[in-house]
């Protein structure tokens, strides 16, 4: 197996710079919230002293004058998805291994592109230069990744077939194991991959378990992990912009209805159903917003989808005015549609039971719902045969 590793170390920063050219040439710190803490998601190389994962106060204290940007994960993923689509135009197997990290299978493509060098150049040209991507080529994921870390822009590095000496002088920080395992390796004096490869696998496995065996294999260039190409999911996307930022839920509901009308009129959705919808948009002077809605049952018509999306907007409205709104219908089913239940009464009973429970919660008492029950079906007095009793699910 021959793979190329595409590594974009600062994709969030570059994506923000593309959106706001005023950030170019300046140190940039991209911040996000993790629970109640504010941490650095990414920072530009010019932001001396700051590093990903650092508390934001500490990072801004060390790098005064850095531009602070609120993270927009949806936008970064969108930028990366577009890149992956461009790579998939060149190779049929592309794996998304994380934001800014992708593996591309090269086997059998050299002949199409006129050699390995041209193939690598073609892949690099598929990536916008502003993303500062680096490429490594190797016989497995780990060798290709290590080669990418050593590469420069427009100059891919290829790991040799005898990868042991290539890996030996490099640090154990490159291993895809936890920070704690790496720290313990250094504690045992194992600072390079060569140190790890020189040991027998038994002691490493005894000390570190599965991570020990993984570290040993990778340090020797043995990487059995297969390439897991991403599956391209068919989606239908519609979007619109507001002339003035939309605040009211009625406006958003109307806009959602318009987008649903457009989406369901598309030939791609004819006779098909969607299991999931994603509402998203750009907030006024703020980051993006997304709300994912999974339909209890696949919907194939505009009204049912609008009912569910409107409920989602009512319960989780956007945190601010929206400048644009997009709708993505995903997880499309085939032409078959819904399968009917053999036991219709079971579902009806479940729905009725749930409705009664919700009424009781809303009224604070048993709802006035009654049913006729047979009590003395043998009675000669007709009005004694049945009784009106309160319905209990």
């Amino acid at each position, binding site marked *: 197996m021959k793979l190329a590793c595409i590594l974009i170390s600062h994709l969030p920063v570059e994506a923000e710079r593309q959106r706001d050219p005023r950030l170019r040439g300046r140190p940039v710190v991209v911040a996000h919230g993790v629970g109640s803490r504010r941490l650095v998601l990414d920072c530009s190389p010019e932001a001396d002293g700051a590093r990903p994962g650092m508390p934001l106060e500490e990072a801004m204290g060390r790098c005064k004058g850095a531009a602070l940007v609120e993270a927009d994960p949806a936008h970064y993923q969108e930028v990366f998805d577009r890149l992956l689509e461009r790579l998939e135009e060149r190779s049929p197997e592309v794996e998304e291994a994380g934001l800014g990290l992708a593996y591309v299978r090269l086997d059998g493509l050299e002949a199409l592109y006129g050699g390995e060098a041209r193939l690598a150049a073609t892949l690099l040209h598929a990536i916008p230069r502003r993303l500062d991507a680096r490429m490594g080529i190797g016989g497995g994921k780990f060798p290709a990744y290590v080669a990418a870390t050593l590469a420069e822009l427009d100059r891919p590095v290829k790991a040799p077939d005898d990868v042991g000496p290539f890996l030996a002088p490099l640090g154990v920080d490159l291993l895809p194991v936890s920070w704690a395992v790496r720290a313990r390796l250094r504690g045992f004096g194992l600072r390079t991959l060569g140190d790890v490869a020189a040991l027998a696998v038994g002691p490493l496995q005894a000390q570190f378990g599965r991570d020990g065996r993984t570290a040993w294999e990778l340090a020797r260039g043995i990487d059995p992990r297969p390439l897991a190409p991403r599956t391209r999911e068919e989606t239908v996307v519609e979007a619109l912009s507001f002339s003035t930022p939309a605040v009211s839920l009625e406006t958003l509901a109307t806009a959602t209805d318009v987008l649903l009308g457009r989406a369901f009129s598309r030939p791609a959705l004819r006779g098909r159903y969607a299991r999931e919808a994603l509402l998203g948009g750009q907030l006024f002077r703020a980051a993006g917003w997304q709300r994912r809605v999974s339909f209890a049952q696949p919907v194939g018509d505009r009204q049912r989808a609008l009912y569910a999306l409107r409920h989602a907007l009512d319960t989780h409205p956007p945190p601010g005015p929206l400048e644009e709104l997009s709708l993505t219908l995903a997880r499309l089913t085939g032409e078959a549609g819904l399968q009917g239940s053999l036991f219709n009464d079971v579902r009806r009973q479940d729905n009725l039971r749930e409705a009664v429970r919700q009424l009781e919660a809303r009224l604070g008492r048993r709802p006035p719902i009654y049913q006729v029950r047979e009590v003395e079906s043998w009675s*000669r*007095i*007709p*009005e004694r*045969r*049945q009784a009106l009793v309160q319905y209990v699910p």
Partner: protein
Amino acid sequence: MAAGDDGFPQWVVLRGRRLEVASIEDCWRIDEEWWRGRPIARLYFEALLTDGRRVTVYHDLVSGAWRRQSA
């Protein structure tokens, strides 16, 4: 409700409309709960009305009232 000399219903009033009884299809009597202080004694008639409807009526032999059996 009105009964003839034979005790059979002649006409009934349904929702303000008076309807003649065309024929008596069935007749039966029930006597229940005589061991209680309030016995039940009824003479039932299944009547075919002139507009084609069938109704079940009974003559309460204890109170003397005529009623329609809806159940």
